[in-house]
């Protein structure tokens, strides 16, 4: 993992996008990834909410890093995250009511999204403000990209539309299974296979 202190903030940002992509490489935050990617809209809103929370919690953790004692750090992380998730949840309920209703329990479930707690533990607790911010941006955007890819595939095949707009030709048979739970496992399994294949091709001998 590219977490050494010698890394510049920009490298930290880039790592989140590809080589340390939280969903496709580190396999963190699987629950929202699978549950809400049956449409592109859900995926984008979820990605945005999680990005907001990871940035805020990374900034707060980085500011508090000299005050936090090691044995209570997980508790502090969780409570910080829970606070920002509450803010995001209230904001969504007020401004994007329809989507917030569809996401249901999965907005509050960002609290236990391991990506966020992982970033606080791996980066924010021992890095400065700017580096933590870049790290959070990279991870958040990487998470959003992975969600969107899944959302595009599943919505295209499952409902024949993109962002709610029908795009498939008239005679297209919808693959209903793709918007149902098994489709989520299937799509992510294949996507991870493809990513691993690409990584194996570009770095022969490198462990996948």
């Amino acid at each position, binding site marked *: 993992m590219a977490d050494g202190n010698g890394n510049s903030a920009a490298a930290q940002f880039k790592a989140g996008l590809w080589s340390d992509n939280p969903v496709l490489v580190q396999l963190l935050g699987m*629950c929202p990834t699978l549950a809400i990617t049956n449409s592109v809209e859900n995926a984008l809103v979820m990605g945005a909410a999680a990005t907001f929370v990871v940035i805020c919690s990374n900034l707060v953790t980085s500011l508090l890093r000299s005050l936090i004692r090691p044995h209570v750090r997980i508790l502090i992380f969780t409570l910080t995250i829970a606070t920002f998730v509450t803010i995001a949840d209230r904001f969504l309920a007020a401004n994007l009511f329809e989507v917030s209703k569809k996401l249901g329990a999965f907005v509050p479930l960002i609290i236990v999204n391991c990506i966020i707690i992982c970033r606080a533990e791996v980066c924010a607790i021992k890095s400065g403000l700017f580096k933590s911010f870049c790290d959070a941006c990279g991870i958040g955007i990487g998470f959003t990209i992975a969600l969107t890819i899944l959302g595009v595939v599943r919505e295209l095949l499952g409902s024949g539309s993109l962002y709610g707009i029908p795009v498939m030709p008239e005679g297209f048979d919808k693959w209903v299974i793709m918007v149902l739970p098994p489709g989520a496992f299937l799509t992510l399994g294949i996507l991870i296979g493809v990513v691993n294949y690409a990584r194996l091709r570009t770095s022969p001998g490198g462990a996948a």
Partner: protein
Amino acid sequence: MTIGSLIMLFIGAALVNNLVLSMFLGICPFLGVSRKVNMAFGMGCAVTFVITLSGVVTWLIVHGVLVPLGGRIGLDLSFLKYVIFIAVIASMVQLVEMYLRKFFPLLYTAFGVFLPLITTNCAILGACLLIDLRDYNLLEAITFSFAGGVGFALAITIMAGIREHLTFSDVPRALQGPGITLLVAAILAMSFMGFAGMMR
């Protein structure tokens, strides 16, 4: 409220709307701790225990403290729910950990690092949130959280059984590990969809 509807709720939460396979809660331990059957079964039991306790305690806090207190001071205190839920779960896990260490040291060493990780198991927070979202009464809350735990234990144990057999099969290199596990989960989820016929 009859026994019959409670049984339906139990079957619904344990099989038809299985927390792992149809609600996608608790996927991380489902993928991470499902290599050995006995480990998976132990994890399932621990989660069932914690989920039932936290489901009941969070229900009691919401209906016994937050609602009456909010009514008295004239504020809607429901925005405090998430913070309270996660604090309750974390302390429940801590409690279970201390209890096991004191009375079942063997089990405690067998669980190792997975015990504290239950805190971030979204199945538990998810069950508490769903109980709150669907306005269950206390009896339903107990049934639902216990059934959710049983469903989780069932799914993770089946998965571990399949993965033990997978070690002997020739999986393409790019799909090894998580890839093939997710594909197996897809087939498992498809077969669990068959239980939907029981709820007619």
